[in-house]
């Protein structure tokens, strides 16, 4: 409920503060909507199937019939990119939601209750952060198995570190505000203060961070599946398309170019959107979530 409120407020605020949305932001939002549409309804409407092999049509360059060309098994590349993109985006979004669920709760507790709880959780996340992100992802993939759920779990754990930090920082700062003292003074329980005052204040920076993380999730998922640790063939994933395309790079560069362009469009748009959100919602929280 409050989440929807924040979204609504966010988009209401953007025009208010700057009467005109910057063209960059409009393009970014448009691109995201276009991509979201393409990988879902668009892919469904698109006549080619990502897994159908037409061996006579192998390694065809871009044409009207196959706008992105075909791969080594004659499969339409656009269809595969859309399918892979869907996997990537879905995995990113779901993992960010997972990270939000875990990281926010722990960050709230650590930032508000301080003491031993803060000590334990902070140290835990510090230790997790010592391990380089991609190494952690690879390790988790090796352990949890190679499928969609494992990717989500792995990314979720990785991104909960960032979410924890952001939430904890915001909590620690809001906690010192006088209106929090006032709320306690009028009988507010800790749950009430955490839910109504602190969490509400954390929603904006979390929204910005979540947007950035979805962008990084796409890149990370691509890396994982490039190594063969993500979704397995014949299911398409952006990374596996790139890996397969490496073999025939010179003859069919489109196999490399188009998946990369797709990623570039998605991540650039998400980052631009996050910048716009950060400006509109006015909180000075920054940083990247690169794995």
């Amino acid at each position, binding site marked *: 409920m409050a989440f929807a409120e924040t979204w609504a407020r966010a988009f209401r605020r953007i025009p208010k503060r700057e009467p005109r949305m910057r063209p960059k932001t409009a393009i970014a939002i448009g691109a995201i909507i276009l991509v979201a549409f393409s990988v879902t309804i668009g892919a469904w409407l698109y006549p080619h199937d990502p897994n159908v092999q037409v061996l006579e049509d192998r390694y065809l360059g871009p044409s009207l019939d196959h706008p992105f060309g075909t791969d080594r098994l004659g499969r339409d590349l656009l269809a595969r990119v859309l399918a892979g993109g869907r996997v990537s985006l879905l995995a990113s979004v779901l993992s960010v939601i997972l990270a939000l669920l875990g990281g926010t709760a722990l960050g709230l507790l650590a930032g508000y209750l301080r003491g031993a709880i803060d000590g334990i959780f902070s140290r835990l996340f510090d230790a997790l952060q010592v391990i380089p992100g991609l190494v952690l992802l690879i390790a988790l993939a090796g352990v949890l198995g190679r499928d969609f759920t494992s990717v989500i779990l792995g990314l979720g754990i990785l991104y909960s570190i960032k979410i924890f930090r952001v939430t904890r920082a915001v909590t620690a700062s809001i906690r010192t505000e006088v209106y929090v*003292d006032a*709320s306690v003074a009028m*009988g507010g329980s800790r749950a009430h203060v955490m839910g109504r005052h602190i969490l509400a204040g954390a929603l904006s920076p979390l929204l910005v961070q979540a947007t950035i993380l979805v962008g990084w999730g796409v890149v990370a998922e691509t890396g994982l599946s490039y190594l063969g640790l993500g979704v397995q063939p014949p299911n398409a994933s952006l990374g596996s398309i790139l890996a397969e395309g490496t073999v025939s790079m010179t003859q069919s560069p489109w196999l490399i170019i188009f998946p990369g362009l797709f990623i570039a469009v998605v991540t650039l748009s998400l980052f631009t959107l996050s910048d716009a959100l950060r400006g509109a919602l006015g909180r000075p929280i920054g940083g990247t979530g690169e794995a």
Partner: protein
Amino acid sequence: MNAPLLRVDGLSKTFAARNGLFGRSANRVHAVRQASFELSAGRTVGLVGESGSGKSTLARLVHRQLDADSGSVAFDGIDVTKAQGSLLKRFRKEVAFVFQDPYASLNPSWPVGRIVGEPLAIHGLASGAAREQIVERHLGEVGLDPSALDRRPSQFSGGQRQRIAIARALATEPRVLICDEPVSALDVSTRAQVLSILAELQESLSLAILLISHDLAVVQAMSDDVAVMYLGEIVEYGPAATIVTKPLHPYTVALVDASPDIRAPKDRSRIVLGTDAPTQTKVGPGCPFASRCPLVMDRCHEVRPPMVSFGGHRVACHLHETHMPKAGLTPVMPVVKAGP
């Protein structure tokens, strides 16, 4: 005389002094020492003192925002000194607190209606339309109209914001209101306005009010009784009129003389203190004011002055110790050649 709503008895609180990096030291700051007073319905007790006198700490101790080291707080006869859980929550419903800074005590992202309605939400007293009605009523009590409901605090002036804070405090229909420097952050013209609203509310709602301020004029305007604090101790306590016209403790005299709105009567010596109050970590034996008192005697450094009571007026000062209560005899400050 109605039975006291709030009884504070011997409240004391010490803090560790922050010396060096690790904060641990043998020195402890005695923020509040043996504070005792009573609040009754429809009456105001004013707590006055310089910064560092412990008055804000005392207010927070009374409201259980801090835990006292010793002493007791009783509301309506029930001891709430160590109350937790539902008893503490009920206490907070009956005793409300108004904070000093109206710019910080209201959540800037919340609309006013939600701010004032928060106590109702917390105590589950009303919801939806009923809540809105109650909020409107209390806003009206402080002189703000219902259009304020959807606006944010940033759209209001300091005085209006403090009135919102008061409306919020009144939401649960408390019987006691503790106001910590309620007008100190406001400019002088707004102060009178807010104070008069408080006075009206007290009248119509029979509120017991504990008013804390460093400004004696503010305290004196509204209070029935005044407690003067110095370095954590209540050094003098009495009816507001008497405190100002016949102050007994040298510190009170200095306060009165320092207050531009109150004139000293001609038959009394003036006391002007040159230095600021020290933040003492070690309170030695003897009177805490001994180091600055222009009328200090040897005894003052060695023995703590006992609290002596003359009817409704009590004072802790060796000067008056010898005036044992005698029928009809009221003590007077000795006339001394002018101080520095």
